[in-house]
């Protein structure tokens, strides 16, 4: 193994572990609410990173990422409350449910033009939202479904270890996925699907795989998140959640692997602390997103890179 490939293998793992250590050290200085905000930020890091693999790397927009998280949360929650199954059974079952639904939906629409996935997933997500609300005999609708927690002490600090571990594993997994040979096919599909097809890439299979995998990751994050917030409501399948994920990815850097990782926490932290001012936080984020798309589509990652390039020559 050459030095370069060894570096490529170990660098992301070391970086991820360093970030995890930094988060755990930082949490020592935070109160209980601060740790809670960190936990939710890590949940959104997983959602944003996985959505970006589909939208940013493969160029196919799913507008149902929040719905797959909700499917994960409700599947695991319902299995645990109605059948008293342990969480190590219900959470894998929830991931499986998200994977299965993602695969079926992908099979139906990914043969067609790119916009079909976006339209069909929008309708799918709205339908999941409607079903969760309407089937109140099962899901308790807007009243909320109480589900068992992962840890009995309910302390956000114990969950911080869980979500940090989950985020490290998911992000490294997604990184390996994007850096594998499949990653080249994904970018080829994004840049010119017809050309990729004519060069012999089975684009439909690749797109279906990516959509299924990223939906499964959303289901995984949602399942754990459900057992953390303990009360599930159809709100987690609301489009505003999807919009938040898009905001995070665009602010961080659309189509850059690191983008969502540095975009999600500030957006989640700001919106948690601005929540008392009502809806204005989302108004501001919308304007910021439009500004980024218009004048700096690479997001924060691009700004940092540009800044780095201006600084570096003076150093060397």
């Amino acid at each position, binding site marked *: 193994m050459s030095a370069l490939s060894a570096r490529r293998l170990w660098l992301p793992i070391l970086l991820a572990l360093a970030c995890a250590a930094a988060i755990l050290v930082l949490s020592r200085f935070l109160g209980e609410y601060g740790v809670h905000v960190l936990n939710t930020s890590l949940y959104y890091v997983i959602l944003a990173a996985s959505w970006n693999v589909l939208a940013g790397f493969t*160029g196919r927009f799913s507008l149902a990422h929040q719905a797959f998280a909700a499917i994960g949360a409700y599947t695991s929650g319902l299995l645990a409350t109605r059948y008293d199954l342990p969480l190590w059974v219900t959470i894998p079952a929830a991931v499986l449910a998200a994977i299965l639904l993602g695969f079926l939906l992908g099979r139906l629409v990914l043969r*067609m033009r790119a916009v079909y996935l976006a339209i069909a997933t929008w309708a799918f997500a709205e339908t999941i939202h409607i079903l969760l609300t309407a089937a109140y005999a099962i899901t308790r609708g807007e009243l909320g479904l109480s589900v068992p927690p992962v840890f009995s002490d309910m302390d956000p600090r114990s969950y911080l270890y869980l979500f940090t571990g989950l985020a490290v594993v998911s992000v490294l997994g997604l990184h390996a996925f994007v850096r594998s040979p499949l990653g080249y096919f994904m970018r080829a599909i994004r840049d010119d699907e017809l050309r990729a097809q004519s060069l012999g890439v089975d684009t439909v299979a690749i797109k279906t795989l990516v959509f299924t995998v990223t939906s499964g990751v959303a289901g995984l994050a949602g399942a754990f998140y459900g057992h953390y917030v303990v009360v599930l409501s159809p709100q987690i399948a609301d489009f505003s959640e999807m919009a938040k994920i898009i905001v995070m990815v665009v602010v961080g850097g659309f189509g850059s692997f690191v983008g969502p990782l540095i975009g999600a926490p500030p957006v989640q932290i700001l919106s948690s602390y601005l929540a008392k001012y009502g*809806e204005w936080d989302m108004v501001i984020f919308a304007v910021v997103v439009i500004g980024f798309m218009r004048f700096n589509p690479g997001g924060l990652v691009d700004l940092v890179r540009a800044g780095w390039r201006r600084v570096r020559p003076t150093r060397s």
Partner: protein
Amino acid sequence: MFSAELFTQSLIAGIVIGIIYALMALGITFIYSIVKMINWAMGEFYMLGSFVQYFLVVGLLGPDLWWVAALLSAAAVFLVGWLIEPVLIKPMFTGGIERRDDYATVVTIALLLLMRNLATALNGPYQRSPGTNLGTVMLGPLPESGARLAAALCALAAMVLFWVLLKKTWLGLALRASSQSRVGVQIAGVDILRLDQVAFGIGVGLAGVAGALLAPVFLVFPTNGVVTTTKGFEIIVIGGLGSIPGAVVAGILLGVAESLGAAFISSPYQNAYGFVLLLAVLLIKPSGLFGERMRHA
């Protein structure tokens, strides 16, 4: 329990509401054919139309002049769309042909977020109703809400107007041509970017009319466009993306399907039947009822 009377009544109610859904779908598919993008903020223009209608009826014109208010609402929404397009949508194109699809998707979703949350911040979550003086109308032996029937008739009128515009005017000719080839239209000397601006305005104007007409039926609040927009998206997949007759037929089909479903299967799930219909169409005829065979780009 099947009764012929309930069936006929649901059928008529379904056609009436389906015509208005079709108007929404028409706006989406029209913008898609010309500007080559899905406007995800369509429901927010619907919401805007319903709010303008509410304030005109309550503050200025009174419920008897609702049709004047609806015309003004449509004009206002057209104007807003016409003004927004050059700022937000036009940068999607570089030189009129090369386009960035991800830009349009993200920007219109941001626009959705902006309009929806701005409305919630300014209005609060209250549901308003402009009220109506149109009583119940008897269609033969069957009662139908006057406001719904009036909305459907006006939606039909808007469709006829839209059809005349497309088929009988120079602008319509240019629009139809640009839906076939953006390059060809430019070679013929038409400014495609100005055409985009008008098309975007007309498309969101159709959503505005739908919002204004349905204001007394479905009430006025910041997220009132969500359900109707979702139906609009379902309709364009069912009818075939880019097909105008497809949007009309599929709109009525969806209205009837959910109305019959609500009457004979289960009414809490009324808004989910459209998705079932969408899945059925995707399984049997993926390009939609009136869709062309799949083409790339």
